[in-house]
């Protein structure tokens, strides 16, 4: 008997995508702007996020963060220094966060109204690419110590980002980092991406970043009343 073909044409991550879409709508309907931060380990995500949380708190905004790591709650402890509410997800070997992990954490969290929820993904330039976490903004970070060619080597991840942060700019000269080339490489894989040059040590770029973030949050909430 000849084999027969059953047409399926279904997205492999349909279940995750459906849940993420529902979560995004729910977050926005509650006035919560969610961002998902992705980068390699050691790119300076946690320091820049800690500073971002502190700046937003200073502006009178309510902020919270969920941070994913394979082991330890060290990053949650660091982020808590900002005064924000923080939850740590330990994945125990899993290389990325999934929407259902965020949902479970969120539903178990007794937290008041917030304006921002930041998700610091597991440090990895490959695996987090495909998982929508219900965010309205995906932030990709690239440190000057990694080299300008990272976007070309990991186009999948940078292609999914809405904005890129060049981090550790205080080390750019020592690393002979070519920011023009880095931006060209980012634009090659994600045309039109916004790029900020930042330093967690000197806070270079912080005011511009916070203003931009606030603008994005307001636009996002206005577009989803």
């Amino acid at each position, binding site marked *: *008997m000849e*084999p027969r*073909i*059953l047409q*399926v044409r279904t997205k*492999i991550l349909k279940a995750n995508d459906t849940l993420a879409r529902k979560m995004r709508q729910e977050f926005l309907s509650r006035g919560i702007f969610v961002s998902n931060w992705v980068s390699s380990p050691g790119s300076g995500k946690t320091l820049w996020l800690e500073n971002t949380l502190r700046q937003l708190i200073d502006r009178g905004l309510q902020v919270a963060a969920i941070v994913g790591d394979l082991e330890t709650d060290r990053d949650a402890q660091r982020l808590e220094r900002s005064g924000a509410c923080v939850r740590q997800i330990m994945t125990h070997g899993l290389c*990325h966060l999934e929407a259902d992990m965020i949902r479970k954490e969120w539903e178990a969290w007794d937290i008041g109204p917030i304006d921002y929820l930041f998700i610091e993904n597991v440090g990895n330039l490959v*695996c987090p*690419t*495909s998982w929508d976490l219900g965010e309205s903004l995906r932030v990709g970070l690239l440190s000057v110590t990694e080299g300008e060619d990272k976007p070309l080597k990991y186009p999948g991840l940078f292609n999914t980002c809405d904005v890129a942060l060049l981090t550790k700019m205080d080390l750019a000269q020592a690393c002979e980092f070519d920011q023009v080339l880095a931006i060209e490489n980012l634009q090659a894989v994600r045309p039109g991406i916004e790029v900020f040059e930042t330093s967690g040590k000197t806070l270079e770029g912080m005011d511009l970043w916070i203003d931009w973030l606030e603008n994005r949050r307001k636009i996002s909430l206005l577009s989803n009343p």
Partner: protein
Amino acid sequence: MHELSIANEILKIVQEHASAANVKASDVTAVGIRLGAWSCVQEQSLQNSFRWLVDQTPFESARLEIHRIDEVQEMEVQEMIVEWIEIQDQKEEN
């Protein structure tokens, strides 16, 4: 290693569609997968993960046929799709 999570989602989709079409798990002989150029999936790792999941289960006859789209313009570059399931109906025994 995210390929294991992806393989698990593929198996769930196969189970769902086979069940809806009244197809026995043991009759599923192949699963057609389409991957975008920047889907960040390592094919051998996906094959190994799928094999590990279906071994010694009713779906152990199923193999993955992966079709990678190298053209960045051809489809969503991140796309990962289960395209089809191949079924080999068993002969009815008298």
